[in-house]
């Protein structure tokens, strides 16, 4: 499961999450004008509800309680956290630019050439 409630107070009752969820995870409580995360066990963690949540009532959990099985999977050290990956992600464009500059300095093709894959 991945969608989690950040704060139900923030739900403005727009029903965006109910409208976009392809997995039938949400219901809507018309009496209280609030969405309900009814079946989080069937969330596919796509985040469509979260991205368009106008009241900022939802969040995406990093933790995957039931969907970790791929065909096989590498080990991940303790040092890897959502924050560390976020930091590495934000830093990547600058890192890419440095790598490209270094490659150019070595006489490599600025455009990156063509690898065929």
């Amino acid at each position, binding site marked *: 499961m991945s969608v989690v*409630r*950040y704060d*139900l*107070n*923030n739900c*403005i009752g727009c*029903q965006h999450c109910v*409208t976009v*969820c*392809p*997995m*039938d995870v949400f*219901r*809507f*409580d018309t*009496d*209280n*004008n609030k969405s309900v*995360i*009814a*079946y989080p066990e*069937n969330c*596919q*963690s*796509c985040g*469509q509800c*979260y*991205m368009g*949540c*106008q009241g*900022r*009532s939802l*969040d*995406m*959990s*990093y933790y995957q309680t039931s*969907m970790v*099985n*791929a*065909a*096989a*999977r*590498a*080990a*991940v050290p303790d040092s*890897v956290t*959502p924050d560390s*990956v*976020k930091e*590495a*992600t*934000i830093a*990547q*464009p600058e*890192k890419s630019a440095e790598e490209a500059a270094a490659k150019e300095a070595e006489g490599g093709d600025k455009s*990156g*050439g*063509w690898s*065929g*894959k």
Partner: protein
Amino acid sequence: MSNFMDESRSDGLSRRAFLRAGSLAAGGLGLMALSGCAPQEASEKTDTAATGDAASGETRVTTELAIPAAAAPEKTTYDCDVLVIGGGFAGLNAAMAAKDAGASVVMVDKGNPGYSGLSPWPSSHRWFDPDMGDDADAFKKAITMGGEYLVNQNWYQMWIDHSKETYQRLADWGLMDRYDRCADTEYWNDLDFQGYYDANASVDRHARWLPLIEEAGIEVAPFTMVVDVARDGDAVCGAVGFHVPSGTLVTFNAKSVIMAMGGGCYKPTGYPVGGNTFDGEYIAYNLGLPIANKEFDDFHVTTSYASGNSFVDNQWDWLENIWLCGGDITADTAESYATGKEKAMVVARVTGTIDGMAVNDGTNIEDQAAADIGRRGGTLSGNEDDIRIGKMLSPKPKGDCYGAAVGMQSHFSGGVFCGLDDVEGATGIPGLWVAGDGINGCAVTGSAYPVGVGFTSNFTSIQGHIAGEAAAKYAASASTSGKVPQDTIDAVKAEIEAPLNQEKGFSPDWARDELHGIMSPFWVLVDKSEPALKAALTQVQQMRDKVVPKLQATNPHQQRLCIEMKHKVLSAEMKLRASLERQESRGAHYRSDFPYRDDDNFLCYITITKGDKGDMVIDRVPLKQDWVGDTKQDYATRYAVRFPGEAKAKGLPEEESTGGWGK
């Protein structure tokens, strides 16, 4: 619980914190005070926030209200000329084409068009552009070799002929607007996904999808799962399903039906295809149609850091524009393009999975804008007017493990087989068409997917358009009643209600996990062998016989899951049987006990059809001779990329490492 990539809670008044503070201030009134029928305006609450007490430490409410019952839809019977099942790219194009041709059209979708199936995540789109100098012979050479000689050349010619007009059609519909990738905006600084979404809301293709359809005069039945396609004699006459949130039976009377229902997976593990559960394939199989190419498995990857988290793996595919691709194959590069695809997309992932992976330290971030143009799928035309610059999503953790959607077919391989001469999606059942990825098993990409990024969203649109025109033409002169017989309605009603009446049985969520556990290990679908396939088949057959008849539901949501499980189990059995039948390795099907291509026996499509006694009948359909390349060619030249064990088995020199995906 710490949440994913959430900003610090003490970071002052970022946009998000600003909104949150406002809501917290209003939230102080308590939930009861907030109750009402109309949506409240976020902006009003934001205004309140300016004077609100952002640091008051108001407690967030994270518990959910009780699950309420959903209201039944107002309309439960539809009448039309053409029923389109599925609202993705194929369904959208089918419905619009049928409407343009003068038919009355109804679209039914298990979710909401624009947000359901795999279509919300195309990320790239390619077309063949002769005006930019694209060389058709070079493209055909690359796909023939890269698809390992199982490519449906007639359908590939349709792509060459119709892909550009298809891009133009989608662009005219407002689905291809381009805007800055997040990494080039202020929202990158704090990975503000929601802020970036809001900033581009006016060009959000997802939100344009449904209005586009409805403004064309097409009726839409959302959140409705079709359970069966109905026939009146030989011909199709509609479909029956149920509105999922409320469990209400819905009937669609139609003169023709287009199944644009996608493919499926046993469980989505980081790839947003969870709503696709082989619904169309199940219906088609039980209508007696052959299901082809189940043995070719999709190789989508996710990152070990969050292997099951689709948001981590596909956030930019959804949020950013659709990148334009194509023009990346020339006469000089056709061969290396094909072998490059085979190495990177098949063999490297097979060997990488079997060998095990490097420890993922979380710093392996993929930046597509920094990749070479070949990998991006960008044009080599050298023409400054060529807008196909390639795929350049913002950086995200790099995928290193295969198995993002276990059970999913290699794009366009598996599904209903309509014959070698078909270029329409006509199933042979009068009035019934199939269109799009996962349901039309035409094998336009052969045994793998060597066509470059962006092919799927374009080609699936072509198939939809063609089927839409054909179905409308048929409906205009069809003598069919176009009315679903009462006994079909009664049968579907009994089928969807059966899990509710199960006094003792099994949870569909448990069954899903069991099936996933059987099918996901790499020795079943990546590194196939007879013992592993037979063992898995035995397990799946146990589920078929002992679990499927006793799936249990207590609400409409679970009714959907029970029916989906039935579809998944059938698919799994077909996949394992097809994998056992193909005693060779080719494209996205590797058998460690037959680690080589066998042209003498397997230049064919393997189909599975429901026999008279309910058994699965397996057939081999030989390809057209002019589709399979030069079979007299030297083996090592014809097949330039080696599977593990192939060189030894064939007495060929060992190839240098095919690893390409790296750490």
